[in-house]
């Protein structure tokens, strides 16, 4: 028997969620979804890109990922609102709860997307389209934002279907409909085909998904290697992956931050590294894992990217140890050009109890540091991340736990009225 897979996708998620919040919680009168508007970063902090835009803004040609100045050139009266990640989390969680009422097998694919295996439960609702419409309406009635639902027999087709016509719609894309509904689309619309691949495919004379599907896989393999087989299969609607209700364990933990100013001295850069190490190690410790490989990445003011990595003697999640390794890597890597962005990434993750290679010179120290980290984590867990911090960060320009979502992006400051 064929499977029935749903793909649920929130229509311009960040913007919809902010619109609902402003209308329903704050009591504002304008619906951001009906005017040219966008969720955008803070230009002053150099986070100046469009994160999501409304359908009216799309008509002006504003795209996600555009810089704010480019967007304003296209649409001078674009209304821009800051991001609000706490809200996105609560909206996302509430949506997942509703989806899980329809089927036990739900894979959260991103903050605003999910796959749902309806094979066993679709019978409860009559047909797949009825179930999908019910799900879409339930999400709207309870949470007040719209979603698209794509229905098919596997994940790739369901995902393609949810992307057809927006907003607030249900589409099917069963294997027998591929030719009619998917093959006429431009090849850039296919999942997994980015702008670079699109250009290469067009150079080969492949402009639609149908042309890609009918291309000899050997030709694609010659140009794209293994990836060519993947997109050829996708174009033919073949995808064997299952809806994975449980997320696979993380293969690596990393954080990076774009600094609000150009860093031209090593000591400031190392402060940033310390704050990143703090963040990464807190995450490692929260998941009770340790990392054996540390990598540092630098983006300089000319947007040149470089990185460097090393393997530690034994896996660790101690902030000081990762920090020390990062500093060594940074010193080896940095050529003195002012730095725009720094990152620490750890990999070769080891689960559970690890055995430590004791070093002759700092015996016992690791145990102490580990206990210190544990205590700091506990304090932060109870009283907030800012309850305790290293003195070096006091009154400084660098937040003591850089990377990830910074506190001001979690909750923007509204001028007046309620904000929850």
């Amino acid at each position: 028997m064929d499977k029935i897979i749903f793909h649920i996708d929130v229509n311009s998620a960040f913007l919809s969620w902010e619109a609902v919040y402003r209308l329903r919680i704050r009591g504002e009168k304008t619906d951001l979804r009906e005017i040219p508007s966008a969720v955008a970063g803070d230009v002053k902090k150099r986070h100046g890109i469009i994160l999501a835009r409304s359908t009216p803004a799309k008509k002006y040609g504003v795209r996600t990922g555009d810089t704010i100045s480019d967007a304003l050139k296209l649409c001078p009266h674009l209304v821009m609102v800051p991001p609000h990640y706490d809200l996105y989390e609560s909206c996302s969680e509430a949506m997942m709860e509703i989806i899980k009422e329809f089927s036990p097998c739900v894979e959260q694919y991103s903050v605003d997307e999910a796959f749902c295996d309806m094979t066993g439960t679709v019978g409860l609702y009559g047909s797949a389209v009825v179930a999908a419409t019910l799900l879409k309406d339930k999400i709207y009635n309870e949470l007040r934002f719209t979603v698209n639902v794509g229905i098919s027999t596997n994940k790739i087709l369901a995902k393609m279907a949810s992307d057809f016509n927006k907003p607030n719609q249900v589409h099917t894309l069963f294997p027998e409909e591929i030719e009619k509904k998917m093959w006429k689309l431009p090849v850039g619309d296919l999942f997994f085909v980015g702008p670079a691949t699109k250009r290469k495919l067009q150079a080969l004379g492949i402009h639609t998904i149908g042309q890609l599907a009918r291309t000899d896989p050997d030709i694609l393999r010659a140009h794209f290697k293994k990836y060519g087989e993947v997109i050829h299969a996708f174009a033919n609607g073949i995808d064997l992956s299952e809806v994975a209700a449980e997320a696979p364990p993380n293969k690596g933990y990393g954080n990076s931050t774009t600094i609000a100013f150009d860093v031209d001295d090593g000591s400031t850069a190392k402060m940033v590294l310390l704050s990143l190490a703090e963040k990464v190690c807190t995450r490692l410790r929260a998941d009770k894992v340790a990392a054996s490989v540390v990598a540092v990445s630098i983006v300089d003011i000319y947007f040149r990217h470089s990185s460097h990595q090393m393997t530690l003697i034994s896996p660790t999640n101690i902030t000081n140890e990762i920090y020390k390794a990062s500093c060594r890597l940074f010193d080896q890597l940095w050529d003195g050009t002012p730095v725009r962005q720094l990152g620490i990434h750890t990999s070769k993750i080891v689960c559970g109890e690890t055995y430590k290679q004791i070093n002759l010179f700092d015996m016992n120290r690791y145990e102490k540091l580990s206990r210190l980290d544990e205590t700091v984590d506990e304090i932060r867990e109870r009283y907030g991340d800012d309850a305790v911090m290293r003195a070096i960060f006091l009154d400084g320009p660098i937040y003591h736990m850089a990377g990830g979502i910074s506190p001001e992006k979690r909750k923007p400051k509204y001028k007046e009225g309620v904000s929850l």
Partner: protein
Amino acid sequence: MLNMPVDVIATFNVQGKIKPNYIRIEDEDHTLQTYKIENIIFSREEKYAGMPAIHFCCNIIRENCEQMIHLKFYVNTHHWVLVCDG
């Protein structure tokens, strides 16, 4: 006009039912006014934007005149909010 945070005196019964009894709002002259909630017309649970809330539609007497108002209690943050125009 935006929704406005308000002070509320409410009772919680043994079944976990919540009933607002009095609200206190700042008027145009910045003085605090207290109003008794005469009766509750209906209440319902909402979860707009994933934020659970209990919506109360109730009557108060203001200037010898019965007036219908909408209050919301946000379950996660424990805020009471007066909704403008229901």
